[in-house]
């Protein structure tokens, strides 16, 4: 993916468009030859995006950037945003297959959706995807398919919820999370599954497992909050993204679920989720 930077020097002649005030800055190059957009990840890595040509050019700004970190930026950050810019609705979520349909798990990083998705997989409900999911057919029966089939889990979660010794690799040197590649099920890769319900993982409000039905607007906002976008200030695309999230929220029931983060509780959490399905 992309072209090494040896023959495309990195140009700093650009204007900042948007920042997440953490690691990511979106810039607009002043010259078309430098791309339509420039995504910069701290001082480590940058990607110039040429939208019409459907091409990206990587710029490795830190010579010590590991291959796993480069892959993380491309797969977990750049690719979902490019898909969004091309018109897909891409959400940061996990999904598991239940009786041929999908349950989608939404939540901010650290809320436990990857662990819960891994738990479902170990219990026989195949993982559809984690991190980035594409949603389609907004007005009819919304469907979900994975951008790529892998999980990112902390080592203790790997030990607690996964069976056997899955193949693991480092995500980035500054994170202890491991990337686990799920053995691909031929019927899952490339397939879009009708969404049965969405579950938004909230911080534990008490020592109990709690589930409540969400209002349609609440689910819409949860989807917006967890959607990828290349240029959040692009009015037309933001309007389309919001409209698509609204359409999905009208068709799919949403539930807020909160529980203490205790691996021993996961079987009860799975049962509670399955009990909500039609």
């Amino acid at each position: 993916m992309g072209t090494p930077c040896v023959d495309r020097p990195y140009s700093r002649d650009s204007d900042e468009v948007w920042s997440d005030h953490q690691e990511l800055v979106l810039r607009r190059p002043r010259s078309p030859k430098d791309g339509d957009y420039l995504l910069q990840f701290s001082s480590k890595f940058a990607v110039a995006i040429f939208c019409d040509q459907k091409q990206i050019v990587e710029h490795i700004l830190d010579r010590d950037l590991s291959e796993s970190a480069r892959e993380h930026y491309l797969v977990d950050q750049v690719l979902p945003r490019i898909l969004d810019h091309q018109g897909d609705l891409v959400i940061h979520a996990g999904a598991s297959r239940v009786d041929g349909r999908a349950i989608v798990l939404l939540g901010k990083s650290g809320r436990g959706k990857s662990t819960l998705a891994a738990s479902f997989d170990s219990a026989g409900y195949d993982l559809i995807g984690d991190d980035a999911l594409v949603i389609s057919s907004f007005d009819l029966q919304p469907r979900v398919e994975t951008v790529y089939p892998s999980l990112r889990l902390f080592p203790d979660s790997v030990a607690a919820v996964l069976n056997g010794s899955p193949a693991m690799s480092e995500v980035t040197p500054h994170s202890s999370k491991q990337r686990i590649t799920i053995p691909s099920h031929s019927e899952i890769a490339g397939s879009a599954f009708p969404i049965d319900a969405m579950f938004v993982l909230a911080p534990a409000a008490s020592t109990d497992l709690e589930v409540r039905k969400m209002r349609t607007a609440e689910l819409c906002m949860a989807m917006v909050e967890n959607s990828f976008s290349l240029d959040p200030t692009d009015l037309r695309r933001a309007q389309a993204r919001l409209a698509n999230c609204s359409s999905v929220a009208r068709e799919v029931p949403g539930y807020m679920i909160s529980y203490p983060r205790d691996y021993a509780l996961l079987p009860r959490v799975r049962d509670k989720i399955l009990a909500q399905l039609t």
Partner: protein
Amino acid sequence: MIDILQRNLEQSGDVVESAVGDETVILHLVKGTYYGLDPVGTRIWAMLKQGVAIGAICHRLADEYGVELTVIENDARVFLNELEAQGILVDAK
């Protein structure tokens, strides 16, 4: 400071919205924040966009819900101040 109920406010050009049932979700593009309006908030928002003066909105709601005007006005102040703090409402040009 002028009472917000006396001010002429309009929707910011940096927001997009979507109707979701009888509620509305508003997204501020620059701040990256979103805000949900319940059915009453949605009605107020719709009337603001139609150019109805805030005072008239309050009178209309007081009549429809049979609630004292001062109660509606106090609730409206909280609501409108919140929308302004979120950058969703700005002073009309």
